[in-house]
Structures are given as structure tokens and as C-alpha cells.
């Protein structure tokens, strides 16, 4: 089964296009308006918009910064920690996964997260897993992560207001898990999935964002 999602238009962007520049408009100098002037202006404005779109999905460096070392063990994560994690990953594409040891589809899709991370981490992908388990489930979380060979940041939720967090991430997230969220290297949310998602679905969404 696939997660619920709608595609975003971001994959249309070409990384190279952010270097495009818009030159001046000699046809429209002066006060006279001509059809040619209107046409050129339209093209220029649309070019500006296109450039803005492409710039907004790009990042300022051609090489992603190195992946921040994951914290040791399972760290409790509150709202402040969540913001810190996202800030630390700025410049890299970030895939965040909410899961729990008691959630079968979460466990089933987890190997795909590990594989995605192993395949694309050198291209700028970071993965962060946030467990919704109870505090006493820490040994079960650790055991599961070890069995999966996960070597990315893993946290256990300790949010003060989970509902507010859900709304801040994506107000249309119904709150079900597994849920995954893809951020571009500028920290903008690009894609959201609720429900189990396939390797191919993740890959097709994140690959165009990588460098």
C-alpha cells in the first residue's frame, strides 16, 4: 500500500537553471508601448518568475554540507529539539519519518529508509526517525534500529503539544503513522506522506532535490 500524498511541482526544477540571469530590455526603453514591447515584457516577467521558482528550490552551494553526526542513542525530542534538528540539517535534503515499534507498516517501510539513506547520503540526503513510542519502549526502539542497521538520527517524541507540532509540520497531516516529510535543502516542506510509502515513491520525490 502506498502513503497518501499529492505530488509537488518541485521536481520540475533544474539545478543548473538557478544560474540563469535576466538581461535588460532595450525594446521597452522609453515611454512608447508597442506589441513587441508587450511580448518581450511578458517573456521577461515569465522568465523572472521561472528563475524565482528555480532559485527557490535551489541552494547556495553546489555541494551539500556534510551530514551532521547523529546523536548517540535515542534522544528525547521536544519542540525546541525539533527546530534544532531541522536547523542542523539546513543545506541538506531532509527526510523525516514518524514511526513506532508497535506500528507494523512503520516497521515494514523502515528498511527502505535505511537503504535510501545509505544510497543518497553522499548526495546530500539526511534521514531522521522520530519514534512515537512510550518512554519505557526505549530498549525495543534501540533493538529495532540496531536490527535495521540504521545509522541516522533517531529520536523519541517528547513533545509538549503533539497536535500543535502536527499542525506546524503540515496542517493536513491527520496524525496517523507512518508519516514522512521531505524538506529541501532550504528547509521548505516539499512532500508529505501519511501511511506506508514505497522506496520508489520516496526516491522519485527526493532525487530531483539532491546535488
Amino acid at each position, binding site marked *: *500500500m*502506498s*502513503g*497518501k*500524498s*499529492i*505530488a*509537488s*511541482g*518541485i521536481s520540475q526544477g533544474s539545478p543548473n537553471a538557478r544560474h540563469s540571469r535576466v538581461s535588460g530590455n532595450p525594446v521597452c526603453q522609453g515611454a512608447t*508601448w508597442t506589441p513587441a514591447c*508587450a511580448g518581450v*515584457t*511578458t517573456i521577461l*516577467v*515569465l522568465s*523572472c*518568475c521561472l528563475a*524565482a*521558482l528555480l532559485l*527557490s528550490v535551489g541552494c547556495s552551494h553546489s555541494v551539500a554540507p556534510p551530514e551532521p553526526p547523529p546523536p548517540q542513542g535515542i534522544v528525547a525530542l521536544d519542540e525546541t529539539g525539533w527546530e534544532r534538528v531541522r536547523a542542523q540539517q539546513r543545506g541538506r535534503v531532509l527526510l523525516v519519518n514518524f514511526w*513506532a515499534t*508497535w*506500528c*507494523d*507498516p512503520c516497521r515494514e517501510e523502515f528498511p527502505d529508509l535505511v537503504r535510501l539513506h545509505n544510497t543518497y547520503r553522499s548526495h546530500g540526503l539526511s534521514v531522521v526517525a522520530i519514534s*512515537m513510542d*512510550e518512554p519505557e519502549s526505549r530498549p525495543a526502539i534501540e533493538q529495532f534500529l540496531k536490527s535495521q542497521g540504521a545509522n541516522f538520527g533517531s529520536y523519541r517524541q517528547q*513533545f*509538549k*503539544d*503533539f*497536535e*500543535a507540532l*502536527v*499542525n506546524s509540520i*503540515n496542517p*493536513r*497531516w*491527520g*496524525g*496517523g*503513522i*507512518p*508519516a514522512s*516529510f*521531505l524538506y529541501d535543502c532550504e528547509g*521548505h*516542506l*516539499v*512532500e*508529505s*506522506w*501519511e*501511511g*506506508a510509502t514505497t522506496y520508489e515513491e520516496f526516491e522519485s*520525490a527526493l532525487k530531483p532535490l539532491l546535488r
Partner: protein
Amino acid sequence: MSRIKIVLAFGLGLFLLWSACRGGELPAAKIKVGEKMADFTLPDVNGKPHQLYEFEGKKAVAVIFIATRCPYSNSFNHVMADLAHEYESRGVAFIGINANKTEPVSEVAEHARTHGLDFLILKDEGNQVADQLGASVTPEVFLLDSTWTLRYHGALGNSHQPTNNPDKTNGDEVRPALDAVLAGKAASVTETKAFGCSIKRVKAG
């Protein structure tokens, strides 16, 4: 110059539209608080069809999406059972709907018996009603008043600090809404996030 402004405004409009589309908008619940829920027909665990509107005359109807294998939903079994016992005598009907493709109807029947869910349990094999309402998780409640108007949608309780510890789970969020509907008043909180297991649909929603 005004034409330039028009073109610029058009370009800006396109950009804003594109920006609004970014972020991977998930499908939202298809029925909004204040809207009337359309009738539906689903079979119970014995295969007997039931209509929502057969509960005409009730003061309220609580439609709850449930699961047999979701530990989070299961940690609310006692909450659902208690709420039903308490509120059915006050004119509220409870309907449980299982829309998980992974949970066969025999299992749903056994689960209800075992956990004291002695209200009407329906099986939504094709996710017809789950899709109609845009339900996404278990447990998730849609509370209707006597005119089938949605008055509350979301969690039974614990939406701010989700837990699957049955000692901590409660119905503290749906309860005020139930009380408000019975009193003929608007609920002070009409929507919460229903954390839980995503519904295992036949097809991706």
C-alpha cells in the same frame, strides 16, 4: 505602464499559486465541521446491512474508525466501551467502523466481543465510507448531531500528548463535544488531531 503592472501581477499570482502548491498537501477530511454527513450503508460483522440514517431520532451519533491490530487504537478500547455505556443511555448511538483491508470481518467480530465494544460494528471493506469522510487513522471519531451535521472530528482524547498506555488514554476531547451536542450547544473545541495508525486502505488514498 498599467499593462506592465497587469503582467507583473499575473506573474506574481502564478508564483504565489505555485508556492501554495508546494509542501505536499495531504488529502484533508472530506467533511467539515458544520456540514451534513450523507447517508451510507455498510454491513455489520454478520453481513447485515445498516444505514447511518436508521439512527434517526438519536440525539447524536458517534462514528468511530477502529482497528483490531493497531496498538494505539486498542489502548482506547476501554475508552470507547465506557463512552458507549455512558452516553447510549443519554440518546447517543455509537458506530464503530473497521476499514482496514488487513483485518478480516471474523477478526473484527472477535475483537469487539473480547474488548467489550458492544455497539454496532460495521465493516468498510472497500473504504467506501472512510473515503467519503476522509478518515485517515484509528481511532478517529466523527460526532454528528440529530440532523447528521458534523459537530466534532478528531481524537477521543490525548491528542496533545499521544500515548498507547491504556492507563493514560481517555475520552477527554470527545466528551465535552458529546455534552455540548446533548445540551444543544456548539462544542468549544470542534477539531483535534486523531493520532493513531493510518487506515490500511485497499488503494492509496
